[in-house]
């Protein structure tokens, strides 16, 4: 197995673990962090491809993902805080208003 395959496998694993965390963990903040993990997995695969192809596109896209992730967190966390103030709990099981 050469380096690219190993790195891609690692990126896939990190992404899958992140998605698993979103499904499995109850805490809202932990779920957010798992989403960040997913983004990291994607970043790794992009860098791997950029390294393999020699193109700058991969790096550019990684940089853009940084920006987007930052903006996302900056907005997501205040939303979570507001939600928690409303419901009084960080447990996702409490948020079933969309049922039916």
């Amino acid at each position, binding site marked *: 197995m*050469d*380096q*690219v*395959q190993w790195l*891609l*496998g*690692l990126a*896939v*694993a*990190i992404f*899958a*673990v992140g*998605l*698993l*965390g979103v*499904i*499995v*963990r*109850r*805490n809202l*903040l*932990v779920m957010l*962090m*798992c989403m*960040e*993990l997913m983004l*990291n997995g994607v970043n*790794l695969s992009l*860098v*791997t491809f950029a*390294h*393999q192809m*020699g193109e*700058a*596109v991969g*790096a*550019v896209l*990684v*940089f*853009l993902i*940084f*920006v*987007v*992730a*930052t*903006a*996302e967190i*900056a*907005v997501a*966390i*205040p*939303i979570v*805080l*507001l939600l928690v*103030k409303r419901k009084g*709990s*960080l*447990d*996702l*099981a409490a948020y079933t208003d969309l049922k039916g």
Partner: protein
Amino acid sequence: MIDALLARLDTLLMLVFGVGALGGAALMIVLREPMRVATALISTMVFLGGIYGLLGVHFIAAFQVLIYVGAVMVFMVYVIMLLDPRDPAIQRRFSRLLLPGVAGFALLIAALVAATWKVAPKPAAGAVEGFGLQQFAVAFLREYWLQFELTSVLLVAAIVAAVAVVRLNRRG
């Protein structure tokens, strides 16, 4: 022997960093307190930064640590600090979908690996062992300037949203 080790240092470090990143990710799922989960994530990110550095994209590695760890995770940690540890969400870790989740996880790994395993051609003729900041900057200013500007718009939107939330918070 040290020479043999040093000759293979790249591969070794890559392996260590990779295992570390994966370990941190696995810990994230398992640990109970959010603060510990955050720490695990930080470690994963740092290891990934190391991998980027090994691949030759030093500035991306720098950005990883600066932005991801330095801004995003710090913010995360602040928020975790604001929370009540007696919150029942912290007591019970897993949702009801643990088993289906793990099964799906296994399937996803299998499917993704099967999809990407074929992608292993030799590096292209003009591949460089890493490329420099200059190339990156030129690319940004020449071909991808539109995306660059759009990200600034996105950041403005995020700022506005954050201010709005603060106001809502104050009013509510």
